[in-house]
């Protein structure tokens, strides 16, 4: 338990250092992500943009790394979107009764977990910032994303498009928003935020590509 608390404290400390401002009284930034038409966008990720140099900073020491999980349940990745801080290990347990063959060709992390069942697969360390798209070689429709961020300060919007970034030390930040279907690159959404007290309404507007149906063969949609 102590180890956990320690690791959290360490993470927070490092995050405060990255923000460039150290403040003993953390504050909260909240807001929403909407489409051009004002509709709420769920599963968007709002995070604190870090200086470019920070991305190439050496990952936190082995001990500081956390372990995340992307499960495979009912022939789908659960959750479909997992946001991790660079250097995080991710396990891919298979809770189906069949084999899966998890892979990614993404430049941020190319890997392959050949056919396996249960907890057999070794964890994968995501040591590069970027979008890692997951697939299953056997089940074409299975698709998931692991978003590898250089910062622990991120929040994922809920069904109403709301996000809450908590425990941020006071200071000046640049916030960006990402979405799997966003037409804008994250840096194009950058918003500076002066954080003295809680900032309640930071709003991002994103234009999304049309949600693409999963690839179909001969018009017959593969059902999970």
């Amino acid at each position, binding site marked *: 338990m102590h180890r956990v608390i320690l690791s959290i404290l360490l993470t927070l400390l490092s995050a405060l250092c990255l923000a460039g401002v150290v403040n003993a009284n953390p504050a909260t930034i909240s807001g929403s992500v909407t489409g051009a038409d004002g509709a709420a966008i769920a599963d968007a990720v709002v995070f604190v943009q870090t200086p470019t140099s920070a991305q190439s900073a050496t990952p936190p020491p082995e001990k500081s790394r956390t372990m995340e999980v992307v499960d495979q349940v009912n022939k789908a990745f659960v959750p479909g979107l997992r946001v991790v801080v660079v250097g995080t290990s991710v396990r891919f347990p298979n809770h189906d009764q069949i084999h899966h063959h998890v892979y990614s*060709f993404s430049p941020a992390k190319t890997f392959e977990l050949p056919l396996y069942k249960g907890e057999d697969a070794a964890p994968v360390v995501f040591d590069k910032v970027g979008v890692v*798209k997951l697939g299953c070689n056997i089940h074409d429709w299975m698709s998931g994303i692991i978003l590898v961020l250089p910062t622990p300060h991120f929040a994922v919007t809920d069904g109403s498009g709301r996000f809450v970034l908590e425990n941020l030390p006071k200071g000046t930040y640049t916030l960006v928003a990402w979405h799997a279907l966003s037409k804008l690159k994250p840096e194009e959404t950058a918003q500076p935020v002066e954080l003295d007290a809680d900032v309640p309404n930071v709003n991002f507007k994103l234009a999304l590509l049309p949600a693409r149906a999963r690839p179909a063969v*001969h018009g017959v949609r593969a059902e999970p």
Partner: protein
Amino acid sequence: MRGWHGRSLRTKIFVAFSALILTVLVATLGLTQLVVGRDATRTLSRELRTTGQVFESLLKERATRLQTNSTLLASDFALKRVFATHFDPASYDPETLASAGLSYRQRIGVQLVWMTDETGKLIAASPANQRVGQSLGGLSPLKEALANQSAAGDVVEVDGKLFQMAAVPVLGPDVIGFLMLGQAIDDPVAAQLKVDTHSDVTFLTPRQVFASSWPVAQRNLWHDFGLQNPALLQIGTERFLSLVVPVRAHLDQPLYALIQGSYDKALTPLHALQWRIAIIGTLAMLGAVLIGVFLAGGITGPVRALVAAMQEVLRGNLRYRTHVDRDDEIGFMARTFNEMVDGLEEREQIKDTFGRFVSRDVAEAVLSGRVPLAGERLEVTILFQDIRGFTALSEKLDPVALLRLLNQFFTEVVAAVETEGGVVKQFTGDGVMALFGVPQARTDHPQRAVRAALGIVSRLEGLNGRLRQDGLEPLQIGVGIHTGEVVAGLIGPDARVEYGVVGEPVNLASRIEALTKDFTATILISKEAAARLGAEFVVGRAALLPVKGKLLPVEVVEILGLAGGHLDARPQLP
């Protein structure tokens, strides 16, 4: 037409029958040609259209198969892995991609394998292509595949050749690139389509022929077609019906499939049918000829027999009867003919019998109804003849011998009178009374009477010769002739009517005959008769003689003979 009318009935019936059959035959053939020919064209057009549809389905099916194959290939994990290398220049491996393309070409029998990245840039091609490194994003069907991030297919032209092309995304699991497979539409494909559809197929644009089942020399070019669709074209010695079907494609010019079926082969059943009709028609014709001959013979045979009978009757054989044993019109005609000849024969018998008692001419005139019942006024010449010294002769001869002599004499007299068209009206025991100009009117009746008198004299000489040989006295006669108006008609009660003339001239003629004895002349004629004669006769003495019953004497002229003739009617002095 005179020639036609002149033909025999048999020929006419036969020609009419043949013409009828021939007309029916020609009409049948013509109608068959028209109906079946039009039907064949329609059927062939329909077949071609069906072929066109089959053919579109085949192309679509091919496209679908191609797309399926492409999708299966694009799902190959090894391919995906090699494809993904293009994300990292360090590991990018185009040679492996190209070799994989070659392997795929061999695996599923396509002619073209292209691989692009997710933006449409060509990263590998088999066979090698100079477009590698260029974006094909504007090229169908990749354009559509890019836009929809899904599989697409089209017919396109690549380096002058026609291809059915499929573009399918390579998923990892998002689109990491596109796999494009091209299947050539070339001559072997056209040949296979011909095997499948039994029609010749050519793929062409208005500018170029891409593929065809025809040999190169016989390929149709665009300018061979008019506006008609389908059109009839002569290729070599055969006619082909050609249908142009548009093919969905992305070329700079519209692409068409030209589907051609042999028109002549389609007409083969028609020709077979026409042959059969012609054979049946010819047999029918022969049958008709036989029937015509038989039927015509049946009709014309009895008709000819009838005609022969008529000719026989015309020649005077009234005993001839025709034998046609039929119940139809011809039988009726034959029976009627026989009845008619019966009537004719009966009438002839009556006339014959009648003629023996009266003159033939009179009999004919009476029988034909030419004699008016009320009588008629006519100018006639009356001849009286008498045998001189008959009383003395009758005393010398046996009555039977006398009668035979008289009959011989009268036979000659009658012959002489009838030769001149005269009528012996009555026998007066030793003489005759004859009329000229009745019942058949003749204007030269005086001449005829005189010629008849000379004829009697002449014939008498022959008879007298025979009498002298028998040791008998020759006969001497006197003839008196007068011309005048009498009333001619039927005289007597109904039961015993006879043809005769009444009037003063009859008495005068008899008186003149009586004058011959005293005047010693053989032939004496009245002035009235003499006035009507020409220079034909030799005239003797003329005299004014008193006549019994007449106040004034009568002027008579002696006739001696024919001018230039050897006849001499001078009385022979004892």
